[in-house]
């Protein structure tokens, strides 16, 4: 009924304008103010719909190697994620938090509640789901077994080449499918984010004593790796496992 009466007012306002011209300004004003009132009434109701509390909790932490206690390096694009579901709702949707390159994460816009969380699609042996109570500033670290530990990584510039040497320690029996050396302006450098990459398919179960060497010939990439500029370089290896991502050594910054 409310919309109906609104229509009558507006029709009459139109009529009034036509008929009255300047003489009858006062009634016109009255009618306009009736309209304005009606509008403002309805907008009050609208504003009440969005009366939820703002997010009131945060969560942060990191993904740590259970053995070395170091953070496990990640990719931002297509990398590992924390998949979580807020409990207490019917048919809840999955939500995701993206791990940062260094293996930490943070979400400052959480609602205090109990969640089911799982680290998924990462470069480590999959973990079970866990229940997490988020309240205030919650800290939650994950202890994982990375598929691969890139050891003794050494990346240097030598003879107008970038030369990376490293050993691979694998923690599962699967084969290592490929290794790679990646370059980019950003510290987030990796397999899905690089300007130049050297990759090598190896498809073997590696031995920790094997020294792997990967190179980037700077002369061949002058357009993308400009002499005098600084770039980040990172080496990594990819295990042959479902949805596995690269494991990396920390990125190294080199001025060319």
């Amino acid at each position: 009924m409310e919309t109906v009466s609104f229509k009558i007012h507006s029709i009459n306002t139109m009529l009034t304008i036509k008929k009255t011209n300047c003489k009858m300004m006062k009634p016109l004003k009255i009618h306009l103010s009736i309209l304005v009132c009606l509008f403002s009434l309805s907008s009050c109701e609208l504003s009440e719909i969005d009366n939820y509390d703002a997010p009131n909790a945060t969560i942060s932490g990191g993904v740590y190697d259970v053995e070395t206690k170091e953070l496990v390096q990640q990719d931002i694009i297509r990398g590992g994620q924390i998949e979580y579901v807020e409990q207490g709702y019917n048919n809840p949707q999955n939500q995701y938090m993206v791990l940062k390159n260094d293996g930490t994460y943070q979400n400052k816009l959480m609602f205090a509640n109990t969640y089911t969380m799982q680290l998924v699609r990462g470069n480590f042996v999959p973990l079970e789901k866990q229940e997490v109570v988020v309240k205030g500033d919650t800290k939650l670290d994950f202890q994982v077994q990375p598929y691969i530990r890139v050891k003794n990584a050494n990346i240097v510039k030598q003879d107008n080449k970038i030369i990376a040497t490293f050993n691979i320690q694998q923690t599962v029996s699967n084969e290592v499918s490929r290794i790679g050396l990646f370059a980019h302006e950003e510290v987030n450098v990796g397999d899905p984010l690089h300007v130049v990459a050297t990759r090598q398919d190896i498809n073997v179960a590696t031995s920790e004593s094997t020294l792997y060497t990967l190179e980037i010939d700077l002369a061949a990439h002058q357009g993308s790796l400009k002499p005098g500029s600084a770039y980040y370089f990172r080496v990594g290896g990819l295990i042959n496992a479902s949805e596995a991502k690269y494991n990396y050594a920390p990125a190294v910054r080199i001025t060319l």
Partner: protein
Amino acid sequence: MMKKIYFIYLVFGVILSTMPACSDYLDLEPKNKLPGDVVLSDPNGVKAFIANLYYQAPIEDFVYFPREGFNARGNTGALALSQYGIEAIHSEWPNWNEYRNDWWDKGYKLNRSLNLLLESIPTLSISQKEKDELMAEAHFLRAYTYFALAKRYGGVPIIKTVQEYDTNFESLRVARSTEKETWDFVLEECDNAIRNLPENWESGDISKRRATKWTAYALKSRAALHAASIAKYWNRAPLSGDAVSKNLIGLAASDANAYYQACIEASAAIMNANRFTLHKPTPANPQEAAANYQAMFMDPNQASSEVIFLKGYSNAGGHIAHDYDGWNNPNQTSEGFPHRGRTNPVLELVDLYENYNTPGQPAPIITTTNGTVGANGGFNASTSYRKFNSVEEIFANKDARFFASIIYPNATWKGVSIVIQGGIVKPDGSVIESRDSYTHQGVTYYTYGKESSNQYSGFDGSADMTRTGFLMRKFLNEGSRINTWLQSTTDFIDFRLAEVLLNYAEAAVESGYSQNNVQANAAKAINDLRRRAGHTTDIPLTLQNVMRERTVELAFENKNFWDLIRRREFHTQFNNKLKTALVPMLDLRGATPQYIFVRKNVPGSNPTTFPEKDYYRHIPGVSGNGVIQNPQH
């Protein structure tokens, strides 16, 4: 006055208060519409109904755009499927990759209409043969509908009867079937269509525009190959989650060979029907091959021996026409249409076309004198580039289909020489790559080849100019003038013999199936296609040869995108991927001006990485329809 107004309020109020009363005074049968049961009880009504269902079929043609959906006209931007894969890039929006995701809704609407039709046909007063044929047509369209659902969403709810709407919502909710059950349903519906569809309708023309037995075989060939590839290559990009553990997405590797065999058998039925041949299969030379191939797409009705099924267009200016020419004509042949030059083929595709003197090999464009393709970094003063007196020489000897599909620098189009140039190298080795001119030995040269922007077609960065050095030729009508919207009436070939041969060859080489001489027939199939393109040396049946042949033969026919999806190559091809341009530059360093070519990442484009989750699409409305969502969506 005021009293009068209050009186009017009162009168309105009284009138209105009587309105909501229940009366059937306004329940009129509209005079300009037919009620559903009248349409579906009359044989001619059914035919009209079916014609509309063909229009709704998920044919990815000139009016399919991934960010607009099916049957999209108007200002679509012409962001075509070829630009989402590795064939081309868009001149104005090189980084756009939105996805409309409209087939869930449209597919289930079409499915409901088909179910209505299937329940109505038995009640018509027509002969049993006519009933069987109409039923078979509906089964064909239902197979097509679920094929388009399965390739986007994996396993989907299979609804074979007309659902009755009532307040019990639970009865309307149908759970997803497994991906395997869904593909098997698609193939079963193809078989239901094949069984009763006629080999021909009453005229040759109608037989290309209405499903025949051969159309249903061709759909089965395409669908079975898609399913087989997912089964074989699922492990290249495995996913996890609820939908996977319940088999709603994913096929087992052990299922691959049965699907490959289904593809081989369906394709063979067409190949052995003594009804279809390649259009002009033995041209005298590559020039003739190029002319024949171009003509086939300009007017598919000339190529009736090869065409199995086409979507027709007519009525320029009306809503059954399209804008393919308008969007894609070179800038120089602008005829009044407000946009031009949108689809720009990329060098990755151009590189794939064979050279006649190196059969069986991709022939990348060699830009440097040491015989390497050269880096993608743009002009480098220390590189020794190959130099050419005329700009098109670098493409000499390429496969005829390159010349028939793509406009390249100095190609002739509508009698005009298409000028595509991206810069000038000055005598001192410095370069001009933005709008400028340079006078050398009394002659003035311009960065983009000519002085004013209506005299050239590339690289000045505006939306009407190519960013890659290449423009479209395939499908464009060289005889038409396009001065406004909806002027193109070129028909689109949805199924043709070439695709069936390539499906057969891929299924043969992937499965190793060797009965019935399949391997030899598959080698013959790809060599027949190459012979039609002017090649005279046969090449062996290898996966690489089949896939290259498929990509160049079917270029821009909206197949390559799905090849990357079903073969799970999207995430490896698009891993931090920048597409490549070929930039011709005028080099003034020598005694006479010559052209060099520089490979370059497409200007203005950003690296693209395909997320594995997008091998399946987000299912709309899961909170309402209650189905399990695809992983990570």
